[in-house]
């Protein structure tokens, strides 16, 4: 079975047939075991030892390596065919909603409809835990609509701004 795996913006093709695992066509030697705790895995990759914390949410995996959190998406061949053309919310093209990562108070909205913004540009000032936090755009784009208003209390994951 073939799998297409995206880690951030890099994609890998992995093929698994019984015990044989191919990474981008190259056979790799992997020994994967869970070590006691539910989400803790020990991996021997050609003898090199790694520890990973894995949280699975359907075909999305959050994998923590040496404290760094990686977002990993897996599609198999069929899923890939089905998804071709269709926009997944997490794909970089198409619309993107900037969500409130935590509940808080909108102190100021820093962009307006129609603004063209850069990746990493601050778009909203959100106050939480007595601190003002800048929300930044995950990618460049045009502001399609501004949902949040100054002084508004927002819940976690509430959409604040829609980019296109």
């Amino acid at each position, binding site marked *: 079975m073939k799998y297409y795996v995206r880690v951030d913006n890099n994609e*890998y093709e992995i093929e698994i047939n019984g015990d044989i695992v191919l*990474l981008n066509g190259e056979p790799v030697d*992997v020994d994967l075991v869970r070590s006691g705790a*539910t989400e803790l895995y020990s991996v021997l990759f050609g003898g090199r030892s790694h520890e990973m*914390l894995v*949280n*699975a949410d359907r075909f999305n995996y959050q994998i923590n390596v040496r404290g760094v959190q990686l977002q990993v998406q*897996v599609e198999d061949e069929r899923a890939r065919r*089905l998804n071709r053309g269709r926009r997944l919310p997490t794909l970089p093209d198409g619309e993107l909603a900037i969500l409130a990562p935590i509940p808080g108070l909108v102190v100021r909205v820093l962009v307006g409809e129609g603004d063209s913004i850069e990746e990493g540009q601050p778009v909203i000032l959100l106050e939480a835990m*007595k601190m003002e936090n800048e929300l930044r755009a995950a990618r460049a784009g045009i502001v399609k609509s501004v949902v949040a208003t100054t002084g508004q209390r927002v819940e976690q994951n509430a959409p604040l701004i829609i980019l296109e």
Partner: protein
Amino acid sequence: MFKKVLVANRGEIAIRVLRACEERGIATVAVFSEADRSALHVRYANEAYCIGPAPSRESYLRMDRIIDVARKAGVDAIHPGYGFLSERAEFAAACAEAGITFIGPSPEAIEAMGDKITARETVRRRGVPLVPGSERGLRDEGLVAAAREIGFPIMIKAAAGGGGKGMRAVHDQGALVAAIGAARREAMAAFGNDEVYLEKLIANARHVEIQVLADSHGTTLSLNERECSIQRRHQKLIEEAPSVAVDEKLRKEMGQVAVAAAEAVGYVNAGTIEFLFDSKDNSYYFLEMNTRLQVEHPITELVTGIDIVKEQIAIAAGRKLRYKQADIIPNGWAIECRITAEDPYNNFMPSSGVVSYLKEPTGPGVRVESSLYEGMEISLFYDPMIAKLVVWGETRAEAILRMRRALNEYRIGGIRTSIPFHQEIMESTEFMWGTFDTGFLSRRRVGGMRPHLGEEEQLAAVVAAMLAHEEGRQATMHVGQADNGGKGEPVVGLWKQAGRMRAQRGRW
């Protein structure tokens, strides 16, 4: 000595104090908010009582309830930890009224140092050097005028401040008014008082502070300096002792100045004098005195061998200090990294969730002060600092290498933490050379991008594919997308998987 002590705090510092009490054979009482029923400090204490709902102002800031519990439990002393009520003169006074010893300085000393402007005037009389700044009680127009006088860049600070809250650096006239507004908002939110004042901003200055211990018999000791220049938005993230910038002669001199500042207010118990330190000419200026135990006190403990919290208790019980200034000889090097529930790759956004896995570092030279436990729910009610990782080494180099080792061992599942940020700093040549100042982080925009992991990233891809394969998720995938775009149903799947894999002796 006290028979029973109440700790009016939560998190790692509550546990730190409870441990000190247990090691002195003192019975302990914890207080907790409804959100903290199963917190470590509740389980650690001999007794524990709920004092209200999650928000601090309804629980950990409720003096009346805390003193009420203290009375009912029959404690003879209260330790406030840091934050919360630790620097509220009226709380120290309320304890005294209730006939309970406050483990800390007198209300007068807290008062005198608590108001930053009064503090500056008090210590100036003792010849303690100060940064040029504005006088008190100015409204916005007054501040603008004062700023012109002092000259830019300047620093805005909260009069009731501390912990960097309400602080703002301003580099030109233009940004001033807006910055004052933001600073007042933060100050009001944090301290219920929006008064701010101005100070000349010393470029490329370091933050160096002196720990002092004073007993009630007239002895005040300097436990030497801590280097706290690694800050983000005026929040300390990494501290070390000693400081690479301070030599033996300077250490002695700054120690004497700090002792003078403490004596200026008849200070008793543990306190810290913060200085702005200018490496260019080794000049230093009094910033403020923190009239409480500091977050970073462990690094001083590791290089001096003195248990500061136990000394606080002994001092409050009227004991004489067992040390003379000559006994305080720094030995080796200590570094502390503050572990916070924040995402360094998303602008240090606070991260909430349940700690699904935990393995903390240990072994030679490693000390962990932690509030973490598996199953702990990290809420947004309290400060995001969840643990402190502290290491000791014979040399600074050994300490840095040991800190790297310990950071690599630290495993916290379920939430984002500042660990990768600290790993990045420990690898940075600027930090290794010690040639940094308080502008260090703003200059290098750390945590902007996560490091490239190379093999580990490939491996993560392989592991995810193997798990998907093992789980036979293919079927559910399309459905998942079709119905709800692939969200929902998190752990359950993994639990099932867990069961089966364990059956296979965790191997396939």
